[in-house]
């Protein structure tokens, strides 16, 4: 099928697909960009922060609420809130713990940048494989590990049925599409507002600009950093819930790996350290992948994404929107 006719024929369908997928990438990308803005660190373990929320989603839907059939109306809204809040909190806490255990000791010792990078990668692998052991059959130092993920695959039940809500430009929009877009837009808007108007948000922007001057001006660096990780974790948590619900994805210890890499790519594409850049990068990446499939086929998706990244970086090394934590 010719690339241009393919893209033209499927334009609105693929745009919808790209925006929905991109919204999820954008939310995860925020975690990478916020932490980079404040610490100049690529938090590779952010993909595991995402993974934590998928595990919470699994347990919330199957064990706490016992969902077996798709829900509607008020029940659905309540369950969604009841899943989103714990999952986001869990991810936020995971991010904060990560900061405390993997990065703060290095910061306090004035360690070189490389140590942070190694710690990040190490933390990512350690958390992944710790969760790999949580299948109810392993113990760590004689303490039996909780059965979170075994036996795999652990699929979540269908929480919402897929109802077409309306059609625009010939594309059907279902309630799952609306859920993802609405939650993503709300989260992004709230984060943007938070960083722009609150005191902690100002602190984040100040530390991102110049940590020394910020501390001279009375900003508590440690608290700002914790807040940054927590916010990024909340975003990744929301992304995790939406990801699982949208795809009925089974929870697994490697589930964060690929979304993490793609979100990181999106953050760099939009301008690492730039919040709006992360959002833009996420949406753009989603669109390139979707339209790329219509153009030359799904197996080229990853290649297209990375070629675009390289080309953009060659022309604009700081990414599309540049490198500051702007709000």
């Amino acid at each position, binding site marked *: 099928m010719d690339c241009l006719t393919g893209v033209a024929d*499927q334009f609105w*369908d693929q745009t919808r697909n790209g925006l929905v*997928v991109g919204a999820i990438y954008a939310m995860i990308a925020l975690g990478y960009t916020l932490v980079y803005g404040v610490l100049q660190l690529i938090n590779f373990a952010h993909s595991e922060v995402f993974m934590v929320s998928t595990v919470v989603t699994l347990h919330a839907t199957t064990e706490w609420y016992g969902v077996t059939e798709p829900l509607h109306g008020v029940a659905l809204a309540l369950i969604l809130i009841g899943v989103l809040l714990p999952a986001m909190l869990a991810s936020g806490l995971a991010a904060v713990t990560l900061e405390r255990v993997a990065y703060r000791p290095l910061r306090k010792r004035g360690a070189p940048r490389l140590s942070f990078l190694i710690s990040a990668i190490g933390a990512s692998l350690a958390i992944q494989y710790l969760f790999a052991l949580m299948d109810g059959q392993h113990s760590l130092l004689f303490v039996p590990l909780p059965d979170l993920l075994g036996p795999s*695959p652990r699929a979540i039940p269908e929480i919402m049925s897929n109802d077409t809500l309306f059609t625009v430009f010939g594309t059907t929009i279902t309630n799952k599409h609306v859920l993802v877009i609405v939650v993503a837009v709300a989260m992004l808007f709230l984060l943007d507002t938070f960083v722009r108007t609150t005191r902690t948000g100002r602190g984040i922007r100040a530390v991102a600009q110049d940590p020394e001057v910020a501390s001279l001006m009375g900003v508590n660096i440690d608290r700002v950093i914790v807040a940054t990780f927590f916010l990024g974790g909340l975003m990744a948590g929301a992304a995790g819930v939406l990801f699982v619900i949208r795809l009925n994805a089974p929870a697994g210890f490697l589930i964060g790996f690929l979304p993490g890499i793609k979100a990181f790519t999106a953050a760099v594409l939009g301008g690492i350290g730039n919040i709006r850049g992360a959002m833009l990068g996420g949406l753009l990446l989603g669109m390139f992948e*979707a339209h790329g499939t219509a153009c030359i086929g799904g197996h080229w*998706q990853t290649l297209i994404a990375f070629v675009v990244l390289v080309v953009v970086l060659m022309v604009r090394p700081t990414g599309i929107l540049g490198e500051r934590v702007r709000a």
Partner: protein
Amino acid sequence: MRKPRWLVGIALLGVLSLVAAACGGDDEGGQPAEKIDVTVYGQGAWTGGASGLVLPAMQSAQIRFDELNADASYPATITFETADTQGSGDQAPPVAQEVAGNPKTVAVLGPAFSGESRAVGDTYNDNQIPFVTPSATAVDLSEFGWDYWYRAIGNDGQQGGLAAEYVASVLKPKSLYILHDTTDYGQPLAETVEAAAKKAGIKIAGKTGVSEPAIVTGTTVDFSSIISDIEASGADTVFFGGYDVDSGPFLNQAAAAGLDVQVISGDGSVSTTLLELAGDGAEGTLLIAPSNIFSDFVAKYTDAVGADAFSVAIYAAEGYDVAGLIGEGIRQAIEGGATTPVDIRAGIKTYLDSLTTDSPFEGESKTYAFDPQTHELSASPNQLYFFYEVKGGELVNLGNGVEVLGG
């Protein structure tokens, strides 16, 4: 104080008598005074997302080995060990090193997947360890010249051809869309179907692959862009070459998106995992596999394994039969005079080479005779393949290749 000489003398005497006792044990050959301790390794995805395709075979193999061990006249004690690669070719080499390094290893049941077979075949072949696979179907495995490798099922060349024949003669679609997972199992299979379908005159509406399939990355794939592409192509039938961890979500997302196509997939999708991940989306899916999941053995499997039994007992009968083949090979090797694991390995190979269509091994799912050149099964492909349909959340038997396609 120096030790008195007479103490040294007694110590020497003690050591000598111990040595004599140890050496004197097996001086009478042929009499099964002691069972020989041997180890057989089962290589495959014992854990991980792909385990639904491997565990039924391993559980059934364990049943067979337990039967042999319980038999007083059987001349060996078989320990069935786990060689867990999670089905990944990357994780396989260290596992194979462990297997080859164990002096008690006499055979390998597996490797279960084709990718891991390619990764370790040379290791086993160089160490002269017979490795018999109950489930790895890639065609090129028989082309590496491995003398010690045997395949106890049909291969993807046959599978792809039969799937295409089914599509052409039974389904007769308006057009066919080819979807694959870019792995070295799914892509060749899908391309075989594509080539055979083209030859049969079926219109190919489109072809695409999944760039990061879940079988490789561990993350569920978002098929939305591919689903839109299929819809735009106007195809009414899709062949999916890949594994359950990808075909399951594909079926689920396609149904959710309202895509109305007939999906047909190969043996990588025939598992309980597919039904779990696809949910209602699996309804009406057609499947083909070189394993009879409705054979008489399956009842025995479910009884013996109990609560851990998989509802889709893919390759269970084949796993049981391969264990039987290895077990019989061990018996004949020992009866032929082998006493050490190294000799038993050679004896197993001699036994497997000796099976012909006139004197095959009678297994639960079929009879086994291996072609002397390729070590593939000497049987017509139509007899080796079985067709299923998903109805009411379960797999339903449509018959084997002979019944469905004739020949």
